[in-house]
Structures are given as C-alpha cells and as structure tokens.
C-alpha cells in the first residue's frame, strides 16, 4: 500500500513534475482526490512514472506505488501503437508454452527483452533494436562471459504499469519458472525496464545486472565526446547513475553532461508505451535541446524506449528541428568501437 495519506499537499511534486512543464497535470491533486475523496482523475494516466516526485517528496510519499495501484484493472486512457505491444504481452501470457531447452550450462543468463518486437513494429524510428542484443553478447564475449541466452516471455514491465497486474503475474510466473530451471545465478539484461522489473517486482533471489554495470572493464580507447541520458528506470528507479558513466569514461570517452542529469534528468516523455502525444513530444524536444547544447556528437542511453522515442523525434517526416547528433544505445556504441579496433 502506498503512503499517500502522508501527503500534506505541499505541491512540490507538481512544481517539479516534468509533465507539468507541458500540461495541467497535478500529482498533488490526484493524491488529494484519491486520498480525500476516493476519486480517480485522468492524471493517473498522464503520469510518466519517472520517479522524480517521490525522490524529491519531503514526506517520502511513494507516488509510484500509488499510481500503480490506482491503475490496476482500469482501462488506460491511451496506449501508443494501437496497444500492439500490450496485446502481444497479453497473448503471450495466455499461451501455455513449454520451458525451452537450456542453451548451455552457464551460470550467467542474458535476456534481450523485447527488442525483436520493437524491430517488428517500429519501422519509422529508423533504429535497429536487435543490435542492442548482438552488441551486448559481443561485449560479454570480450569480457570472457558466455551466457545462456534466455528465451523468456516479456518481463511484463509495461503491462504492470498499465494496470494489468493479472497479465504481469502470468508472465512473471512463467519467467520465474524458466529462470529456476535454467540454473543461472546471475541475470544480465540490456534493458533498463527489464532491469528494474526483475530487480524490484520479481523477488528472484539471484543477482540481476544491467549490462552498463559491466562495460567499464572493456579496456577500449575511445576518443569521443558524448552526452548521456539517464533513463528513469535505471536512474531514479534503480539509483544507477555511475555505472553507465564509468562504462564511458573508463573506455576513454569524454562525457559532457546535460543541464539536467542523474537524479534531475528530464524524461524521454514516454514510458510503458503510454502518453505519446503533443505534450510529451514537447518533453522530448526539451531533452533533445539539452543534449544538443552539450555539443556532443552522440547521445547515449541505456533504455530501448528512450532510444525509440528520441529517434522517433529525429525521424519525423518534416522534423520540428534537425538534430545533428546520433542517439545510440550504450552497448551498441561500445560494440561498434570494439569492432573498429579501439
């Protein structure tokens, strides 16, 4: 149970809320309405669950749990891409499916997440999501790690945050069984959302690692300037700000920070494939403008959703603005450098 009753309506949350920069949303009033009158507001769907307000909340109101509970069993206002990814997760949760044969005896398991589905349905963002997987495996190999590649179902992150806990539970039960039978003791994932979900929503009892936490040992010598965008799931949700930065600087990269970074980072504007609209587009523009201001040639991130949404803005038919830098996943960036012999 979330502790909304602790809220004393100071409104700090609303004033710092990224969505408030672009809409009339108010976390404060949604807490108030729910807590005081048991009313629900549309604002529970406007929230990006970025995690900024609970971090800053003086009363330590667990706004994320509040949102998640409020959403359970209700129909989301709008899911982008016609809800195809949700449909896939729902369908997959209903298929019995046998546990696939183990792909080796390694104690390390690597889970690529949903990059294949992204490649299947997101053509217009001109991004090769599958490359995140191939790059990660290459880099793991460079570190001498030979993982089993886990052919699991969706981790369930999106459906959980969309208020479909029953679907999430179905996926979770399957995946837990899968992980148990695979015999691994470390689960490596290249996705910030998977990382959060397996770490916080799964109680696996094994080590969960995000790939960015491994790459500082690669020993590359990269002479480039980049800037780094903290995904909410890796950053504020999991508190991991340093590992991806170290993965860059330890390999020779010069990191140019944006105006808002680490705990204060701005959003990509879309989480769990909800809230694709002109308000959140404004957030993407704001974030991309910050990245542009650093003068770096590359914007690195560690979440495939951030990657998709920034590249979506860049790939628009008649783009709002031409951004002269690439938006690249951390592992893809490093693997390219490795291949280039750096």
């Amino acid at each position: 149970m979330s502790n909304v009753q602790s809220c004393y309506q100071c409104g700090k949350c609303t004033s710092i809320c990224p969505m408030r920069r672009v809409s009339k949303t108010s976390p404060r009033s949604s807490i108030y309405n729910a807590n005081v009158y048991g009313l629900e507001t549309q604002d529970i769907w406007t929230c990006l669950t970025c995690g900024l307000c609970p971090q800053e909340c003086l009363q330590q109101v667990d706004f994320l749990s509040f949102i998640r509970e409020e959403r359970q069993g209700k129909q989301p206002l709008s899911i982008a891409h016609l809800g195809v990814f949700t449909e896939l997760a729902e369908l997959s949760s209903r298929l019995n499916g046998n546990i696939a044969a183990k792909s080796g005896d390694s104690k390390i398991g690597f889970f690529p997440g949903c990059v294949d589905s992204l490649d299947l349905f997101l053509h217009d963002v001109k991004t090769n999501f599958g490359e995140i997987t191939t790059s990660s495996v290459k880099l793991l190999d460079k570190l001498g790690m030979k993982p089993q590649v886990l052919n699991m179902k969706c981790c369930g992150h999106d459906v959980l945050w969309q208020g479909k806990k029953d679907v999430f539970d179905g996926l979770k039960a399957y995946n837990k069984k899968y992980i148990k039978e695979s015999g691994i003791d470390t689960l490596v994932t290249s996705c910030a959302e998977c990382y959060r979900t397996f770490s916080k929503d799964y109680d696996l009892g094994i080590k969960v690692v995000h790939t960015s936490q491994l790459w500082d040992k690669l020993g590359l010598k990269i002479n480039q300037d980049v800037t780094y965008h903290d995904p909410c799931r890796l950053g504020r949700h999991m508190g991991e700000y340093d590992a991806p930065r170290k993965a860059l600087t330890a390999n020779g990269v010069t990191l140019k920070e944006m105006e808002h970074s680490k705990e204060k980072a701005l959003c990509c504007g879309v989480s769990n494939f909800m809230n694709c609209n002109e308000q959140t587009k404004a957030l993407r523009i704001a974030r991309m403008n910050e990245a542009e201001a650093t003068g770096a040639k590359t914007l690195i991130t560690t979440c495939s959703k951030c990657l998709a949404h920034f590249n979506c803005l860049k790939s628009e038919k008649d783009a709002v603005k031409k951004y002269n830098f690439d938006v690249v996943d951390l592992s893809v960036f490093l693997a390219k450098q490795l291949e280039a012999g750096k």
Partner: protein
Amino acid sequence: MKGSVAVVGGGIAGIQAALDLADSGFKTYLIESRPSIGGVMSQLDKTFPTNDCAMCILSPKLVETARHPNIELLAYSDVKSISGKAGDFKVKVVKKARYVDETKCTGCGSCTEKCPSKVQDEYNAGMSKHKSIYIPFAQAIPRIATIDAAHCLYLTKGKCGVCKKVCGPKAVDYEQKDTEIELNVGSVVLATGFKPFDPSILKNYRFDHPDVITSLQFERLLSASGPTQGHVTKQSDGKVPKNIAFIQCVGSRNPHIDRKHCSSVCCMYATKESIIAKEHDPELNITIFHIDIRAYGKNFEEFYNRAQREYGIKYINSRPPEVIVGANNALSLKYEDFSTGVVTQDFDLIVLSIGLDPADSTRALAQSSGIALDDFGNIATSIESPVESSVAGIYVCGVAQGPKDIPDTVAQASAAASKAAALLSGERGTLIKERKFPDEKQLSPLPRIGVFVCHCGINIGSVVNVPGVVEYARTLPGVAHAREMLYACSSDSQAAIKDAIAKNDLNRVVVASCTPRTHEPLFQNTCREAGLNPYLFELANIREHCSWVHSKEKERATEKAKGIVQMAVAKSALFQPLYKQQVSLINKAIVLGGGVAGMTAALDIANNGYHVTIIEKEKELGGMLREMTELYDGKKPADVLKELIGKVNGNKNINVINEAKLLKVEGYLGNFKGVVLANGKELALDFGAAVVATGARNLEPSGLFNYGKDPHVVTQAQFEKMLGKGISANNITMIQCVGARNKEREYCGRTCCVDAVKNAIRIKKANSKANVFVLYRDMRTYGVMEKLYENARDLGVIFIKYEADNPPKVQGGSVLVHDHMLNQDIELASDLVVLSTPLVAGENEEINQLFKIPLDRNKFFLEAHPKLRPVDFATDGIFLCGSAQAPKLMDEAISQASAAASRACTILSRKFIETEGAVSVVNEAKCIGCGTCVTVCPYNAPSLYDVTVNVEEVTYTTNKSKINAASCKGCGSCAAACPAGAITAQHFSSKEIGEAIDAFDKGVKSISIEKGFVEMTV
C-alpha cells in the same frame, strides 16, 4: 447519335472498356458468349512478371462490372451482326437459352449438386468434368446456373428433371428459347479476344498422348482451383513428373500452318509457369525449348533472368521437331544442342506453349459487318490509329487487334473506350439514370439490431444449424429482431428486410450469409431504401467461413457461425452513419510532354469535350518522332507529325505552352493547382487531372564498341537520320542489345529489334547489293512485327546470334563476332557499325517529386499495377503513357495515350468528386505530427500543416496531419501506423474492431500452442 456503346467480348479487354465507358457517363452493354465474363484471364493461375494471382486481381473487376449501374451485362449471348453507321448502330444479339431464369436464380448451386450428368469442363481446359447444369467457376459473374443443352438428360432424352425439382427459387425453365434482341448504340468496341491454338493439327507433337498437354492445361494444373488443386501430376497415371519440357512457338511463328505471327506472350507464360511449378516442387527439372526468348516488356527480362538464376530453369535455344513416344508410352525429345550435337532426352511431361489464334467470332463478325481484317486474321488497324477499325465508330482492343499481353490489352481497352466516348461526347450522360432514395430516418439512441440468417438454400443450412444461430442471435445485446431466410439475397428477401426494419424500428442490420465482396452493396442498398444509412449494415460470412470449410463438422461450424454473428452484432452496435461528400472539380486537364503520346492524349481529352493544356519543354511539339525518318509501315513521320500537330493546333480545347516546365503542384484528384514556368514567367494553372507523357531518350553508348572514337560507329537513332538522307555504305553491321540486358541495365529495350529490322529492310530496299548483318542475342520482333523479321531475311539481311558473355568486337573497318552456330570467330568487313541502344528514362525525378509518384529502379515511372492499371498511378487523378513508363513502339505509345485520356475522362466527366464514406480522420489534439501517416499512405491523402503548440512552459512549432477525404480510400494504413492513436479509420475503428474481438474473446475457453500451432477452444 446515341449515348450508348456495345462492347463485344467480356474478357479483361471488354471489361476494362465497359468500365471506362460506364464511368464516363455512357450506357454500356457488355456482351459475352460464355456463361460468365472473365475470359482467358479467369483461367490463369498467376500473371507474369509479378506472379500476382490472376483471379485475385480480376475478380474485383468482375464484381465492379456486375455492380455498375451503367453496365448491362448480356452474358451467354452472341453478336450476330452490326449495321448502321457511327453514332447509330444496330447490334443484333442472340441471348442463348440458359434454361434458367436469370431473374430468379440465386446461384446457390443446389441444382449442380444434384445433377446426375457430367460434361467436359471448358474452364479446366477439358481436364475435369462439371455437371450439365453448372456455374463455370466459383467467382463467375453473373452467378447464374446454365444448362448444357447437349448433355442435359431432360433436354436430350426427356428424363431426369432433378434440377427443376431441387431449385428453391423455381428458376429452372426447360422451355426457355434463344431470343434475339436488337441494341441501338452509338458505337461498338470489339474485344473478341482469341482462341487458344489447337495443337492436334500438329500431329508430330503427339497431343493425343495424355502427358503432352497445352500450356493452358498446365496453367489449370498449377491453379488451386484446377482439377488437381494445384498439384502438378501426369494425366496418364496421376504421378508427379520429374522432368518437364516446354516447347515454345506451337502454333506461332509457323508459316506452314498459316501462323506467321509471334503470339507475344508464350515466352513469358512458359517462364511464369515454370517458376510456379518449381515453387510447388523444387525437385522438378524444367527445360524450355525456344527459338528466341522474347522478354521484351517491363520487368520481363528481369523475370527471365530470375527464372534461370534463382529457379534453375534451363533454356535451350533449339526447337525439337517432334515428340517421340517410345516403349511403354515414354516420352522423349530429340533436339540439336548447338555445341554438342543432337541429343535425345526423356521427359515425363511435355507442355506445348500454344499460340493465340484469332477468335472465330472475330472473323465471323468482320465478315458479316464489313470490318477489314489484316494478314493474320486480326481486326486491321494502323500505327497512328491502333484501336480504330476500318468502319468509323467501331473500335477494337486486345488480342482481337493482334497478340498482346494483359497490360497492353488493358491499355488498348481504355483507348478504345476513349475513342468511342469522344465520338459520342455530345450524348454523354443522356442514357444513364441516377437512383433516388428516401430520406434517412432519425436513429433512436440505443442500438436496435436486426439479424437475418441465410440458409443459402442448403449451402449454409445443411451444415450450420440456422434456427439455432437465430435463437442465439436473439440473446445478444442490442438485437431487437432475428429471423432466418432461405435466400437472403433474393428480391423477396429484400422486401422482407425492409419490412422488418420498419416494423421493428431497426437501426442496425446484420445479415449472416456469404461474402461482403459480392453481396455487401446489395444489402447496403436495401438498408438505404429502408431509410437507413448504408454504413449501419454489417455482413457476417457464415458460408465461406463456416459451412463450406467445415462441412464435416456441423456442430463446430454452428458454434463458429454463432461466434461470427456475435462479433458482427457487437461491431455493428457501434456503427455511426457515414456520408460521402461531394467535392467540386475542375474539368480541365494538363498533359506533360508534347510528343506523339502527349499530343494523342491531349487530342483524346479535347475530343471528349474537355479543355487541356500541353506543357512541352522544347520549342516545338513532336518529341522523338521528329528524329525518325520512316515508320515500319513505310509512312513518313514528318507527314504523320504534320497532321497530328495540325489537329492539336486546330483544336480550340487545346492550349500548348512550349519551352515550359511545371514548377509546382498541390492539391488532389479533381482539384490540382499548378505553377508553370514559361518565357521566364510563372503562370498559375488549375486542373482536375494530369497525364504524364514525358517520353524517354536514346542511350548514348559512350565507350562501348568504339562509339565516340570511331566515326564509323553510330547509334541506331543516328543511323535512322542518316537513312533519311541516303547513305553510301555497302557493308553495314548492326549490334543489338548495346547497353541493355546487362548488369548495369537489366531491361530489354523492346523497340530496338523492330527498329533494327526496319532499317535493315530500308537499306536492302534501297540497295539490294548491300551487306547487312544484324548481330543479336534474341530477335524480339514480337506479335505481328514478326512479319518484318521475315521480310528482312527474305531480302537477304543476315542475322548472327552472339552470346552475352562473348560480345562482338569492333576493330577498324571490321566487326569480329563469335558465331554461336559455327562455334567460330567471324570477321565482318563493315564500313558502318550501327549500335542498337535502348531508350532510357528522361529527367523523371523532378516530376516524380512534384506529384509524389513513384519511379521504378530504371527511373521510368511506376504504374499503379503492372497488369490491370498500366496507365494509372496509385495517386488518383494522375495518369501515365508512352515511353515515360517503359520503352515502347509508336502504336503502343498511342494506345496508351488514348488509354490515359480515357482514364482522365472518367474523372473530368464527373459533375463532382464523391469521396468514400468510410475515410480516415485525424484527431488534431492527439496528433504529434510525426508524419508516419504521410509515409505509409499509398494515395497521398494525409498532409501536414504547421501548428504552434503551446503546452504550459514549452512552445514549439510542429506539424499536424489532416486527411483529404477526396483522396482517402479508407484502407486504414495510417490508422494502424499512427503511434499516437490519433487517426481513426471510420467504420473500422479500433473500438469497432476491438468490440468484435472482445465479443469473440468472451467465448474462448482456452488457448495453447501445440506443435507450433495456436489451438483455441471456443
């Protein structure tokens, strides 16, 4: 003058001509002698070179023809004679007795099922049998049974009578007689097609052997609707063959049996059939024995190359003289391998690639009506007037004019329609009538759904428990009325549906019967007549989806029928009335390019009564024809041009702007706004339709065969000019395929062989002592052009074949060629070397950007569909003709130009543009302006406009999308692709589809994956 046209022949040519004429405001009679329209195309499995399913692209045209209010279909009818004169013809038509009343038959097929007598099936090329009372194929139009009187037991022996007994609607009528009617029409279009050559007259090819079959029979074997459901088997023992041979030119290029012509299509259909057979069974060995492979059309050469490279189909340049039937009836062919000698090879199945003979009806009609035929038995025409017969007001199209493939046929069909429409333009719209409907009634707020479940005779009722489905429907939310019907489509049922709507105050209607493809318009019309918006109707297909495919599982079929009805009911509850909008249009056209194609298109449009502007980049009209000095029929291009330009300049509907260029275009079908730059000034030009006729240019073969270095090496185009002045050279060597059919430029130039042969003849005629050599890879003088090739050889022109990997070499005063037949290098003394180069695309990139119309990989314009829409673009209102689409001969360019004009006139002749009702709409507030919709739309319907978004602290300028209803076809691509869910495909909204799926989902008990298949228990 009468505002009506008779189209004789209901194959693809007749269908296209009829549709164009009907769309342009003329009452059109389509007369077909077989029970169904569709012609030979309906028998084809696939079409080259895209391997599109023939029936899948033809069938919508059949349906469109049947539905068209301005077309009167006279199937199973013969034209006896045509008399009268242009504007006022009398056409005598015999409606053959079907012994079935067309007005009563519902096509349910009960009679066919019970009929005890069988007849050879013409549709399956005689390889299977159908009943004596039959519907020729599943998609037949009209879908009416016909009795084969020669085999019907009742009609021949007076016994049986079963069909009459089982016929629910009492349509069988043994007393029916042939009836003769006379049509009074303004013009006639002959589209009588061809007759497949009967190979039994060539005794040496042993067509009597069961495993020697015709290419049309092989086509039926490949077809899923054929006698073996698409499995290629031998007729002798039903086994699968291993080695298959195709023998080309059976009944073509054969003067011995008076078939001098090339049939134009056999090389490609043999290639297509081979590819499909290999796709069915990769183990097959297929060999095609040919003389020349004539892969001359757009993408044909690429198709031919793929057949060899990807499918391993073997092409042997040799003509087996006979089919040898040995011991145990085994088949073999003896042929000359040009490098190793004579070879005998065994085959299990031999396919004779039969040619296209003129139809008997063509000859009979020509004789009875005084229409001239050419040397080959085709309706005679000329290069400048390829669709005009010797009788004014009678036009011709398709194979009746000469062998040709489907796109050329379709183009000619539209061309013939253009000519007939121009002749009768003063009478446009006089003989067609518009439907009047009552006002739409006020809808009550809650859905009151009527469900009508059809037995379809026994088609549905014998499998699906129809009363059970009705009972079930009554329990569904929103259903106010449900009943069963014997034939929902019969006319008394329409009255019953209207009655039920009125009595029960229904505001949504669901009919559970057959396919919406054929029947939705009927029921929508019925709803409309009852005062309901047609978009409040939904069809649940429980015949194709239930009773037909699950005939053995009656209970589960019934369950599925309930599920489908449930989905339709759930979906229909959300339906809202939708309206077509009427948008005004500009009844003027522009033509880009003032060559022969452009001028012809402009003249046709002008003669149809519409104003047209020709925009020509050069100082003078004429295009490439200005560079030519003789046509292959001996006429002087200068004379032809003079006459054509005279007509253009003398036509008050045509405005020519020379040295001009189209700078800008915006707008859509019916309402384009253009800016033209001419004389340094920009002028605004508004138009409703545009024809792109920008032509092509000759390839300059720099660096090839010493061209540019040696003054004795010229191109065929330059040589053409030299011949106009007279030349002194005695030893002339032509090299074909220069810069074509190679890696860099894969396509065949199409016109180069005809040009070379024409010029070779000119030299020989001027100086019979001259030595003329033509070095070639395949001589592609297709169709009736074969006579030029014959003529050239008669005159002593020498043709030497060379191989692509060992091309000739030009050295000083001679050409060195490796003679393939002799396997020797030959040196030909040559004081002039002529290089035949292909036409290449002109500067098409600018226009392609202006109109957003696509180019193919060779930078020619890409038509909407390679078979059935050869002069259309996917974007409405813009049309294409001539060599801008691909290289073509002058008569072909002219046919296409008239076709483009005809297509443009189907728009210009409208009083207004009517939009689709079910179009997509954008919710501006949700749109994020990403432009995905613009990218995915094939019709250029969405466009972006600037909006300033002000969201609290952030302000930015972005695009928003809007969809132009006049261009939108309601396909829903944009709605599916929109990441923000801002677009709704009306009538197919996510909500409507979602409700339908959810309704079904409620009945799903379990779902699992078993052996890779998803298993669902309902």
